[in-house]
């Protein structure tokens, strides 16, 4: 496969579980600073695509190139270090640590055993924590135990933990699931701000929310791409209406 200008280039990606192809020769390209939303009915293979990109699931065939670097052979932590961050569907934070500690522990230095033993909590670390805390609207909760945050705040905290690492590609799996209307608006604003200087890949069900953030939408169905383009175009696509948006 040739090199491209895309941040992420997925080509002929296939993964099969006992013969069932969850993702079937998928091709997808994401531009620099693009915010892409992947939608599709349950079981379309959306989360599997994220799992494949971040190394949680190994592909059967095909390639995933991040800035022309093949990801399918790398270990999970190496993919993260290359610049790919991934948020899980249910908030995945360290409940027994404070919000501050959650962010601090995600700081991308001292990532080895010895590095972490000798890691110094410098002013630069603190400044970065404060900056991210403000972005994710948790400045007033820094000392709070993360377990005590609301569901929406937990989602933001996990996004903040990823932002600490300043990834070039950020992947979010249903970031607004379970959020109130107000929290959804705030999250949309947050994502629009985040995507100014990085590429973002979002899986989402909430169409109102998708309209607010998406630059481009990809519709997945049975592990294949059904349609791709702007939100308006996709919404008018007959195949999409039939299998997903419906009625």
């Amino acid at each position: 496969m040739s090199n491209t200008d895309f941040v992420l280039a997925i080509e002929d990606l296939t993964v099969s579980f006992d013969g069932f192809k969850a993702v079937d020769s998928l091709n997808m390209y994401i531009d620099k600073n693009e915010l892409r939303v992947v939608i599709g009915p349950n079981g379309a293979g959306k989360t599997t695509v994220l799992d494949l990109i971040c190394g949680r699931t190994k592909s059967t065939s095909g390639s995933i190139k991040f800035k022309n670097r093949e990801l399918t052979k790398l270990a999970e932590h190496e993919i993260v270090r290359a610049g790919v961050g991934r948020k899980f569907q249910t908030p995945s934070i360290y409940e027994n640590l404070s919000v501050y500690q959650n962010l601090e522990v995600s700081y991308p230095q001292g990532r080895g055993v010895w590095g972490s033993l000798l890691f110094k909590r410098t002013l630069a670390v603190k400044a970065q924590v404060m900056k991210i805390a403000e972005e994710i609207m948790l400045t007033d909760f820094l000392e709070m135990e993360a377990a005590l945050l609301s569901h929406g705040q937990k989602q933001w905290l996990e996004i903040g933990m990823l932002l600490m690492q300043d990834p070039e590609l950020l992947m979010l799996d249903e970031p607004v699931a379970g959020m109130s209307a107000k929290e959804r608006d705030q999250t949309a604003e947050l994502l629009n701000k985040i995507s100014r200087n990085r590429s973002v890949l979002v899986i989402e069900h909430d169409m109102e929310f998708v309209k607010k953030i998406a630059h481009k939408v990809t519709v997945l169905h049975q592990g294949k791409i059904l349609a791709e383009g702007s939100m308006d175009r996709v919404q008018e696509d007959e195949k999409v209406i039939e299998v997903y948006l419906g009625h």
Partner: protein
Amino acid sequence: MNTLFNKIASSSIVGGKQGLLGLAVLAALIFIILPLGVDLFRLNLIGKYLTYAFVAVSLVLLWGNGGILSLGQGIFFGLGGYGMAMFMKLEASDPITTKIQTTPGIPDFMDWNQLTSIPWFWQPFKSLPLTILAILVIPALFAYLIGFAMFKRRVGGVYFAIITQAIALILSILIVGQQGFTGGVNGITDLKTVLGWDTRTDAAKYILYYLNGILLFGSIFLSRYILSSKFGMLLLAMRDKEERVRFSGYDVSDFKIFIFCVAAIISAIGGAMFTLQVGFMSPSFVGIVPSIEMVIFCAVGGRASLIGAVYGTLLVNYGKTFFSETYPELWLFLMGGLFISVVMFFPDGIAGLYNKYARKIKFLNRFTETNKVAATTEPKGAKA
């Protein structure tokens, strides 16, 4: 003076003023109150208990903070203990004292088992520096091998616990079976001297007790340092959400292997000190039962508290001695009951009870109140 105090209190190995208070009380107990308050026989007994405290401290790192339950810490306690025992046995087996043997100059049990020379793996234990090196390096290496095989394949939780337990059993069976090389079920006995210094005299017993206490504090300081660093925070993070740590760019297995090795070394030091103070080592300190007992010491003390682990060890062993002297048949039931009640009613052990109730006492409350600001920057697990 005051600034010096603050400097000490704020350093990461002490754990704030609250941590300093806890350490000072424990130090006073071990170094002053107990040696003055009990006779030498009892002190020697306490010294023996305190060697188990090394293992309990190692379990605080591994289990309480890292969430990795090892039911095989007896392996490392045993390796350390046997290392020291092999050195002392060779020294006790000089040709003059063993002249009635078929082959004089080798340990008595080897002679009984028709061995005519000292096996190759016993050779390094003729030298004290090599013995000390072996006591630290062999358990670490063994832990590295086990850790590498398990954690790189992401074996964890119950499976890891069962496998460590199986290894402890295998090792104890191996020791019993290879009587000629290991002394078998009797263990290695009749240990007398270290470089000619008799460890059985009253003075030696006091010196070894204090050495043991100092090493135990050294282990606690080392553990404190680890827990207060970013490594310590990552341990807690891994315990909570291992996936999140992995997908934050950390190779989780490296961290687990490292802490397992540190825990092995600390346990091995305890084992070596056991041999020095008690004068023998046997497979009954290697297998499943001692390994699980040590987990109970740690749980009773509070599995996340380094100091709590020491108190837990002392308390359970005092209870064991007291009850097995008075009602020997009841002890095992009591021990089981104790473990169940710890798990069910006070999962954070003695340290948890202390944090819940004792801090409500006015004096202590005032003491902690003024230091809250300093304490909030410390990782939670590193306190108490």
